[in-house]
């Protein structure tokens, strides 16, 4: 079966513009995660979705960031009024469940460059 897919793979945008990043999780995976990875750094947790429960948005860095997920399918991460510090790779992951030992499967990421 297909893995986690993300689009676009690369996005260059001007400062102040809005961008929308898309994630298609593995079919049947109820949990979906967004992470941000700045150059040379580890992954920062942004947001988590589990089924129809309220998402955990505790990692979103500002109110310019938002994300949605429809049921257990596609998720979109939206960044409004982009700033240069938003430049990073945005990674999406999904897992079958959220118990302690469920593996997260990662997509290839979207590399966002804000000029």
């Amino acid at each position, binding site marked *: 079966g297909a893995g986690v897919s993300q689009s676009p793979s690369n996005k260059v945008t001007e400062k102040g513009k809005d961008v929308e990043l898309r994630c298609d999780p593995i079919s049947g995976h109820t949990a979906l995660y967004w992470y941000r990875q700045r150059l040379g*750094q*580890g992954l920062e947790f942004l947001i*988590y979705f589990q089924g129809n429960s309220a998402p*955990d948005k505790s990692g979103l860095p500002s109110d310019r960031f938002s994300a949605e997920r429809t049921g257990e399918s596609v998720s979109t991460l939206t960044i409004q009024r982009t700033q240069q510090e938003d430049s990073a*790779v945005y990674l999406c992951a999904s897992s079958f469940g959220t118990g302690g030992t469920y*593996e997260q499967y990662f997509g290839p990421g979207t590399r966002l460059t804000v000029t």
Partner: protein
Amino acid sequence: SQQGEEDPQALSIQEGENATMNCSYKTSINNLQWYRQNSGRGLVHLILIRSNEREKHSGRLRVTLDTSKKSSSLLITASRAADTASYFCATRSISGGSNYKLTFGKGTLLTVNP
């Protein structure tokens, strides 16, 4: 905030040698996982070790966990050029409300020279 801290930050070895990377963390964990990342893109899960385990093997990988020292090590034996990548440890908290979160370190960049 980053819980895991890997060291060294960068490691360069010759093909055939063993590579050892270490990870330290701060809070109590449910499990610790190691991931590999090629060329700054998607991560691939390598191995998971639970908090009640001390050592685990998978192919050429050996992971140890010392919960008293809050540290883990990843050993790659008989390294190959294809092992060149960044390696991250990630911890899963035991906190019931947020035990789904993985907290990643900054990674070790491993270069295996042919």
